[in-house]
């Protein structure tokens, strides 16, 4: 191959790297007559850690599930490396999903399996891996999240909430995904365990070249782990001309946002919200 040819290949690689890893284009999701997401446009670059914040019911989790193809958008497209998830056949979407690791809110570990089998499950879906290698990788990833070998024989119901979340993280990491998606990683945990999970998210980012999307309403998590924050707002409480993403910027700019609703959320102030809720209840 000529030098010129190599340059062309290098250019192609550079342009691939410039392309957003994930792109949501005009994405809307509707359940029955209820608009959950409306006309969302987001691009996520490789290596970014994006926190998606917003009050309960604003569509954060729906957005995250739409990103990995668990929910099909009513309108718009989700592009992964420029390829439309909606246009993929079953086999392609299965392969695309293996590029994601997903840490569910309540870990979503399989009750009927031991911890070992839970963590090994994604590997066993790929047939060409030996039992020996599966064992090594399971123990390695459990050690990385600070879990001893003796938990492997236990069932999920025998573990604490924090341990289950860490098992969920080990399971999400086992296929070395390009994108890690966390759904409320610190919800329901004590402050110390919440910080342990935050540190694990940072440690994971240091150790692996992953892009992360963290859905949370814990501002401490958002400030600590993210280098970009998106704030969603419920569609029903927006004016027609407003977009559902009220804030898109760095965590340090959150406090100085011009939007009162963003500042209110970040400071955790009820403001007029209680009156609004009372009015809705009367109605």
């Amino acid at each position, binding site marked *: 191959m000529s030098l010129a040819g190599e340059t062309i290949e290098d250019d192609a690689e550079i342009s691939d790297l410039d392309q957003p890893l994930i792109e949501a284009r005009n994405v809307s999701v509707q359940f029955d007559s209820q608009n959950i997401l409306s006309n969302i446009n987001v691009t996520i670059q490789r290596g970014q850690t994006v926190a998606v914040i917003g009050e309960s019911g604003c569509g954060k989790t729906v957005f995250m*599930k739409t990103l*990995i193809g*668990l929910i099909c958008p009513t309108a718009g497209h989700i592009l992964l490396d420029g390829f439309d998830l909606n246009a993929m056949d*079953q086999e392609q979407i*299965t*392969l695309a*999903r*293996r590029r*994601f690791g*997903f840490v*569910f*809110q*309540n870990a*979503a*570990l*399989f*009750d*009927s399996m031991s911890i070992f089998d839970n963590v090994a*499950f*994604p590997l066993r*879906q790929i047939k060409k891996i030996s039992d020996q290698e599966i064992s090594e990788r399971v123990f390695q990833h459990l050690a990385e999240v600070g879990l001893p070998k003796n938990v492997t024989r236990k069932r999920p119901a025998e573990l604490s909430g924090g341990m289950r979340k860490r098992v969920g993280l080990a*399971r999400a990491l086992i296929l070395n995904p390009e994108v890690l998606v966390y759904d409320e990683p610190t919800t329901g945990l004590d402050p110390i365990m919440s910080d342990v999970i935050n540190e694990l998210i940072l440690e994971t980012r240091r150790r692996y070249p992953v892009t992360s999307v963290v859905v949370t309403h814990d501002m401490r998590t958002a400030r600590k782990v993210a280098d970009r924050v998106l704030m969603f707002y419920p569609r029903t409480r927006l004016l027609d001309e407003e977009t559902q993403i009220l804030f898109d910027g760095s965590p340090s700019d959150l406090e100085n946002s011009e939007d009162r609703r963003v500042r209110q959320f970040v400071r955790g102030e009820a403001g007029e919200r209680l009156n609004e809720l009372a009015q809705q209840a009367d109605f």
Partner: protein
Amino acid sequence: MSESAASISSIPPDEQTPLVRWVNDWGGAVVDGIVAIGDMAIFTWHMLRWMVSRLPSRGTVLINFYQVGALSLPVVALTGTFIGMVLAVQSYAQFHAIGLDSRLGAVINGTLVKELGPVLAATMLAGRVGGAMAAVLGTMRVTEQIDALTAMGADPIHYLVVPRFLACILLIPALTIMADFMGIVGGYFYSVVILGIDHAAYLNHSREGVTGFDLFSGIFKSFFFGGIIAIVSCYRGFHCEPGADGVGKAATTAFVYSFVLILAIDLFLTIVLNSIYYTLYPNGTSFL
């Protein structure tokens, strides 16, 4: 009417006359019913496609075989025995009055092999296994375990539904045979040991009362019963509403729908099999 019924009227609810409301409610229920049937047909189609393209791993299948077959065996055997004895108790007075006590075996065994054995085994399976399937899958849906399977690149229908379907259709014939056998033993025990009917006469008439086609038709029907239990229960579990109430409702509706469908399919298949029998054997003689 159900709160979840679709509205088919464009008139706001406050402005609807009672007649419009009635038509709206019932029309909505019909639309919901048609949608649910279509949805279940698509669900079944996906499952059948997996059955011909790739079967689940042996470990996944075996654990379901154990839960559906081995664990159901004692309860099916026990209920079968009692049903056989109840038939003897119920029929004895009439047969004794006309001096046909020794023909009790023909009636008990014929009823068991043709109808009660398959339906009883299917009912026990729907109650013990179908309800549990809907509850387990419903809990997996509510706790996002089914989403987790999908997120990890596994197809939930392939991983969760196909093994349960295989276990139900392949093991229900064995459970039916067990129900038939234990019912026959129970009926014999009560008739001969308790009621004192002559042993040899009872057995002779029992042989006359059951044909090979009767045995075949009972087992043939059980395949359909097993299939319907697996499909209805898994479907209800997959479409479980959130919360403990949703899981409970999924388990209850799985049993109720399965039971109603078992009886409806039983009627339909009995008519079809009887027509076939009388076409093959116009004089009503057995092929055995």
